[in-house]
């Protein structure tokens, strides 16, 4: 079993940091042609240049996934250049400032839902539209364990990720017959910039508290999550559809 992505065109959102950055680099190593989007223009273009210098075929566009026109223009440009999307990884996501629901500003809630849930919806629509005529396609939504269980202080984030899982299962049920596979990966926090964001201003104990309830008693290494993403997207994994795949050290099992 030799897993590679040669001759595969792979879309990745939120490509310039965290899981997105790591999966982008892995996919490049494994031969994929990359369609990258991120809201942050500078790091995205820098990444794109670096990948191109290393011999990867890549198109990188600045895109706000919560903006319908932006998303539709982006996919039009990708399709014009490459004519196909074989694999899509909907990874772009943000987290709210940590608050209990009663203290959570409505604007925070709306913002998180817009990016994490509406953004996923808008990208899914485009991906499905372009994959169905080819009767083949793989979509992996990056949800979270917060999409499976309640997450104190992360109400908007948890709601958005539960929503992503609902979209995943529905898309799987609707388009399984058309040859699409749509799944959701549900990681815990790993050492990524998103974790740094929420840990900002907190002491060292804060991170320890995050894994206090995880049976494996540690956070994930980003690699451990991204390796699973690679295998889920591989062409050897052909019967998994509508699944939620926790990579969580046992957190949601207990």
């Amino acid at each position: 079993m030799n897993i590679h992505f040669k001759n595969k065109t792979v879309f990745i959102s939120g490509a310039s940091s965290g899981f997105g950055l790591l999966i982008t680099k892995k996919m490049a190593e494994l031969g994929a042609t990359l369609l990258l989007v991120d809201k942050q223009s500078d790091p995205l273009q820098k990444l794109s240049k670096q990948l191109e210098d290393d011999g990867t075929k890549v198109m990188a566009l600045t895109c706000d996934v919560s903006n319908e026109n932006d998303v539709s223009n982006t996919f039009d440009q990708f399709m014009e250049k490459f004519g196909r999307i074989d694999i899509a990884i909907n990874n772009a996501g943000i987290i709210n400032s940590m608050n209990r629901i009663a203290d959570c500003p409505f604007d925070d809630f709306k913002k998180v839902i817009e990016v994490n849930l509406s953004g996923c919806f808008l990208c899914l629509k485009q991906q499905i539209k372009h994959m169905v005529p080819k009767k083949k396609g793989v979509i992996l939504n990056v949800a979270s364990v917060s999409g499976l269980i309640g997450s104190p202080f992360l109400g908007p984030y948890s709601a958005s990720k539960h929503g992503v899982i609902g979209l995943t299962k529905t898309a799987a049920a609707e388009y399984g017959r058309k040859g699409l596979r749509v799944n959701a990966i549900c990681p815990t926090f790993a050492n990524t910039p998103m974790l740094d964001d929420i840990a900002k201003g907190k002491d060292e104990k804060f991170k320890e508290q995050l894994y206090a309830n995880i049976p494996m008693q540690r956070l994930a290494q980003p690699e451990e999550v991204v390796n699973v993403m690679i295998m889920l997207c591989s062409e050897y994994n052909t019967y998994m559809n509508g699944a939620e795949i926790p990579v969580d050290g046992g957190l949601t099992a207990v």
Partner: protein
Amino acid sequence: MMTYFNLENKVALVTGASSGIGKHFAKLLAQQGAKVVLGARRKDKLDTVVSEIIDVGGTAMSVVLDVTDPQSISAAFDHIYSHYGVVQVLSNNAGISDSILALSTTEESWNSVIETNLTGGWRMAISMAKQCVENNVSGSIVNTASILGLRVSMGQSSYATSKAALIQLTRSLALELSRKNIRANALCPGYFLTELNEEYFQTDKGKKYIQSMPSQRLGQLNELDVPFLLLACEQAGSYMNGSVLVVDAGHSISNM
């Protein structure tokens, strides 16, 4: 990527290895370099599979194993230990079903399904984990459950209950064994084509059932390879523990 699934020098034990999914997993583990022990009640059927593995350069042996008999299990582990060493990958795969409506199910039928599918899996997991702990090595338990451990269908009350309980056992083991460096996960296949169900799926009723599934096709056994290895191999699924991996082409998210 090959290295993620590398099992060289690891001892892997597969129960229910004489046919179907178990036989397939035994061959797959051997392909990844594991020393594979195939367990089932009938040695003659196992030895055919063992020779098939050895013929293509793999390492394998058979052991007579009845998961409903604690003595048979302890003898098997002793035998494996003296020949290959400590079992670090366990594929709990022995399973039976008795398709019968709830009101017609007898004590005997119920008990035999629960005894093999649930208690047998429990005995195997505990024996394996104890040996790992005693020898201070890591381990991975992959329990073959079923989408019927998550959903129900007609005439499967004992089977569905046994598989649901096997999933809960998996989670409990994940919680308790995690700090001992042993992972436990459950695989929930949908309907895969095996020699056991081939006949049914060729009948009109069987064909009609397939048409009612979202993907309108049965799974092929090799479509379980990546999900199974993800759970079995340390380097692939190192942070997956207590997970319930559904591989069913969307069958369980729609009407069953």
